[in-house]
């Protein structure tokens, strides 16, 4: 039995094609996923992301605990509302999940984790808390729903749909959040566009969704979310990295703080690693199909594999993330096995597209 978000009936009434995503029944698209994609790049679209789980961490010593539990350094968070992207690592340096942590105040943080990994993450955090900080309290917030409103017009549409919210959120810098009444409004997202992610009490989410739709925000499904995040060069947990891969082999070295003296879960394993692989972006040069996950990649330094591939609606051609041998340089032309053919693709540095602009050629 698939889990449903509070907006399930709204999606069905809108004619959405529903799919299983991490055990949740979610909208794939409401019509053309390419049109949904363009709506986000050019105007404003919204995604039900209530399958993701907010988890609140409270108590004296919360920062010290997260300094140890997370691979990125929460000491970077000094202003209330500031957000940080981080991996959650296992002791052997594999990626248990990727998450966003918000600093609320010295004794209070909010963490948003992926849907499929939510139960595993909560159990892992609770185990670490029991061992290292038994006074901390961890509270999963299934009473909160989440809507991501994304696109160049996203913020102004939110301000129109939620009267009074502009005063509180107009000055928010990227990657900062603020409370507005019962809403938690963060200037974050997973599309490469400006916008907000709204955390809202489940009882209010349907009214919020309708209000946004009334101001012209287009409902978008997971199909468009995937093409948008891949154009933006953002990893998808479970596909581009998981427990068997290191963040150093997943294009996430920038999120791992190995330079400081701080100890954290997985650090000693990462320090001992000499990554033999790297995650790179690929642009398909030949005609002949679409790049997809698990296709083999042939380079002069050995074989690799596509982890995520799709057709990019903005570029009008196929793009991918691929795990290839370390040392394969930007600009290299390599070969991807697509069915019985070997198609030429070029290594390019993600993001491919950001804020409506193509960044690769």
């Amino acid at each position, binding site marked *: 039995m698939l889990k449903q978000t509070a907006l399930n009936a709204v999606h069905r009434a809108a004619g959405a*094609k529903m799919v299983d995503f991490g055990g949740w029944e979610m909208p*794939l*698209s409401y019509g*053309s*996923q*390419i049109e949904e994609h363009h709506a986000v790049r050019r105007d404003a679209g919204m995604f039900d992301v209530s399958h993701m789980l907010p988890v609140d961490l409270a108590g004296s010593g919360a920062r010290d605990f997260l300094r140890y539990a997370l691979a990125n350094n929460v000491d970077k968070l000094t202003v209330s509302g500031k957000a940080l992207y981080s991996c959650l690592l296992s002791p052997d340096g594999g990626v248990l999940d990727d998450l966003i942590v918000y600093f609320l105040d010295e004794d209070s943080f909010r963490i948003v984790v992926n849907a499929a990994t939510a139960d595993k993450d909560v159990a892992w955090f609770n185990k670490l808390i029991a061992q290292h900080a038994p006074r901390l309290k961890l509270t999963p917030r299934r009473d909160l729903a989440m809507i991501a409103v994304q696109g160049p017009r996203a913020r102004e549409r939110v301000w129109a749909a939620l009267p009074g919210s502009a005063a509180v959120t107009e000055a928010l810098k990227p990657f900062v959040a603020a409370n507005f009444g019962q809403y938690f409004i963060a200037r974050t997202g997973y599309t490469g566009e400006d916008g907000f992610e709204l955390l809202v009490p489940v009882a209010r989410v349907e009214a919020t969704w309708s209000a946004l739709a009334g101001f012209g925000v287009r409902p978008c499904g997971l*199909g468009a979310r995937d*093409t948008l995040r891949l154009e933006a060069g953002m990893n998808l947990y479970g596909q581009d990295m998981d427990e068997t891969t290191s963040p150093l082999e997943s294009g996430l070295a920038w999120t791992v703080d190995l330079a400081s003296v701080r100890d954290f879960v997985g650090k000693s394993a990462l320090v001992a690693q000499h990554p033999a692989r790297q995650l790179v972006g690929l642009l398909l040069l030949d*005609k*002949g*199909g*679409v790049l*997809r996950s698990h296709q083999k990649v042939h380079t002069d330094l050995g074989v690799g594999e596509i982890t995520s591939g*799709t*057709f990019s*609606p903005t570029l009008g051609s196929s793009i991918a993330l691929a795990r290839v041998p370390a040392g394969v340089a930007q600009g290299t032309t390599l070969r991807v096995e697509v*069915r019985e053919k070997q198609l030429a693709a070029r290594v390019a540095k993600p993001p491919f597209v950001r804020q409506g602009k193509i960044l690769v050629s």
Partner: protein
Amino acid sequence: MNVPADLKYTASHEWIRAEADGSVTIGITDHAQESLGDLVFIELPEKGRRVTANEACAIVESVKAASDIYAPVAGEIVAVNDAVVGAPEKVNADAYANWLFKLKPVNSADVAKLLDAAAYTAAIGKE
């Protein structure tokens, strides 16, 4: 679901129209384009290729998946529709107007044995 009564069908979601010159025109059904979603790539067989019944001879790819297209009956490919190769989205817009290829059947009696609209409608109802 749009299933024109004057066409023949396969369980693998091709439609087939018998032409006056003895050839058959083949495309994918409205149900198929709807299930695949936005089409972004189409590869068609070479003209002159001989195919057996149920042989994979074309490929359609949407943003989310790739799908083989099968020859509904044995025959020789006599025409391909290059217009859909250049603009795969045409098939999403009208799956019956935008055909993929034409073939000349080895045995024209094979065409009569394909599914009719009622049988195809029943088949997709069970999916």
